[in-house]
């Protein structure tokens, strides 16, 4: 039997087996539904949501280091008035502070505030470009979380829990909906800066879900994935033959160990890598974008260039059907900054001046671009962070971590645009009404609902226990939904 006919035989056998499996006729698999059988053959096969989805993709903008939303979106005249005073005891009730050097005096930065749009939402002078989208944004000004170190709170932001081992939101989405583009990963992680986000890959991990659902980090630059390019000394045909052999050998092991999800993921990833060799570089190649588009994203400015490039890539990935794009903010290339994130424990003025200059124009550009291409209706953009920052000062001119009340916002399909849910107290330290507090898993439940998924029914059996994205919590913030 020649190689060709042997391959043809295997191919046809595979098709027959696949057909049988799709029909639910494979012995031992029982009367499986076609969808389930397809999932067994391809864990990334598209799956139906629980109900009609409002959006197709999510761009999850993690502002790493935790910005002071008090200096961006949450205008507090009382804080400005009381600046320099001790924090009144009534505002500290129910919270435990652990600020190094003790709780400082109430601190107001040198901001100018203005209302924008028909919604009259307040924006500071640090975000003039985002302010033009006042009527596009949906604010949650009663965000809360667990206050811990950045790494732990970032883990909670992405996985819903403070302990490692759980899948990230993007992994749950990929597991529940599959891939809409077989040539690209369904879940991509983007970042600007010189290295991967310091909180690490546990934040795009698939946890106890099969490994195939984890996020794929795309590096900045022309070669987004390490070792993806085919060596020059190897032809396409040689590579294909190697991959075919590898797949055959791996499939034998996979049949012997059907519970080995790592192996299943590896088989999948080799094939995906083969397809991605051409698809991924093309997806992130912004050379054919117009100068006007590049300027829209702030690529003409050194401070916003790297973040703008990442967001332009995010838009291109949305166009190509990528379900979940997790963007972690880094810092501007070559910036002279001690803290390479939003973590302004000191010198907030300098830090936030730089960081807002990095993100303001690119994010505003992304919203404008998505809208003009008719993509915003089917996309959800989320501004999120591991926590906010305190209304009292630290180190004289900085702010400490604040998990008790901060602002996050969403924009896109299925939302009440130009709407604000919840508020903080008069000085912006805690949420004003605990019944309106929105925790990380509530945001997750809401994002899932927009994707057509019921967080209570998005489940996975792990060692006999049914697990879900929202652990034992989760309440959809229905008030912000259109």
């Amino acid at each position: 039997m020649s190689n060709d006919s042997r391959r043809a035989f295997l191919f046809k056998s595979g098709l027959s087996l696949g057909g049988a499996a799709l029909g639910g006729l494979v012995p031992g698999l029982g009367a499986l539904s076609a969808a389930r059988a397809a999932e067994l053959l391809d864990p990334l096969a598209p799956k139906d949501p629980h109900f009609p989805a409002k959006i197709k993709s999510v761009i999850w903008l993690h502002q790493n280091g935790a910005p002071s939303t008090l200096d961006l979106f949450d205008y507090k005249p009382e804080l400005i008035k009381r600046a320099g005073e001790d924090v009144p005891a009534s505002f500290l009730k129910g919270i435990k502070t652990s600020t190094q050097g003790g709780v400082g005096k109430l601190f107001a930065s040198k901001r100018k505030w203005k209302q924008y749009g028909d919604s009259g939402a307040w924006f500071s002078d640090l975000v003039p470009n985002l302010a033009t989208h006042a009527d596009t944004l949906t604010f949650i000004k009663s965000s809360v979380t667990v206050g811990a170190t950045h790494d732990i709170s970032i883990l909670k932001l992405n996985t819903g829990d403070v302990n490692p081992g759980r899948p990230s939101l993007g992994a749950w989405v990929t597991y529940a909906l599959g891939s809409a583009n077989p040539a690209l990963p369904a879940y991509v992680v983007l970042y600007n800066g010189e290295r991967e986000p310091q909180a690490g890959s546990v934040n795009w991990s698939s946890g106890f879900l099969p490994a195939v659902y984890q996020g794929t980090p795309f590096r900045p630059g022309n070669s987004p994935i390490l070792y993806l390019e085919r060596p020059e000394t190897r032809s396409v045909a040689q590579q294909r033959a190697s991959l075919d052999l590898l797949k055959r050998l791996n499939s034998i092991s996979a049949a012997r160990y059907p519970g080995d999800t790592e192996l299943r993921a590896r088989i999948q990833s080799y094939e995906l890598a083969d397809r991605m060799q051409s698809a991924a570089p093309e997806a992130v190649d912004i050379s054919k974008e117009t100068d006007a588009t590049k300027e829209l994203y702030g690529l003409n400015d050194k401070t916003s260039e790297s973040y703008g490039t990442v967001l332009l890539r995010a838009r291109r990935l949305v166009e190509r059907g990528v379900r979940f794009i997790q963007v972690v903010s880094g810092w501007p290339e070559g910036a002279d900054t001690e803290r390479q994130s939003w973590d302004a424990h000191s010198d907030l003025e300098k830090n936030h001046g730089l960081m807002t200059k990095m993100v303001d124009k690119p994010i505003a550009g992304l919203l404008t671009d998505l809208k003009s291409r008719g993509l915003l209706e089917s996309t959800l953009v989320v501004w999120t962070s591991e926590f906010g920052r305190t209304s009292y000062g630290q180190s004289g001119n900085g702010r400490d971590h604040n998990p008790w009340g901060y602002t996050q916002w969403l924009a896109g399909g299925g939302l009440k645009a130009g709407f604000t849910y919840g508020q903080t107290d008069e000085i912006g330290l805690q949420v004003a009404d605990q019944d309106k507090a929105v925790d990380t898993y509530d945001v997750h439940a809401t994002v899932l609902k927009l994707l057509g998924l019921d967080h209570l029914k998005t489940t996975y059996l792990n060692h006999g226990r049914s697990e879900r994205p929202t652990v034992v919590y989760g309440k959809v913030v229905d008030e912000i939904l259109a």
Partner: protein
Amino acid sequence: MRKAALFLFASLAFAGGVRCADEDMDEDLMQSIEDTNKSLSSNLAVKDDRGSKEDAKELIQMFSKVEGYFAAKGNATDAVDLAKKSQQLTLDIINSVAAEDFDTALNASTTLSRACKTCHRSYKKDKDKDKS
């Protein structure tokens, strides 16, 4: 003198032991509630009628102990109320399961988890303050 010192040492050790045991019991109770709540969520998700009811009944007993603990402690009316509310919510879950309405039961279980969190917000921190 030596006997007196030994007696004092033994008394202090005994008192310390009781105190530790008392604190440990609270921690264990809270841990058991957390574990049983997770188990309940899982059993409701897979529509395990029997498992759900067993977990819920255990939770009611444990919330009753929590109510008793805070009632005895005093100056914790909201914690007592939350413990009572948790018992009622768990009872609602049992009724929903009996009616095979697992969706309602699952929703009630998230409300129950929120009640736990609300209580922790005030009282878990008090304990931390004691430690520092």
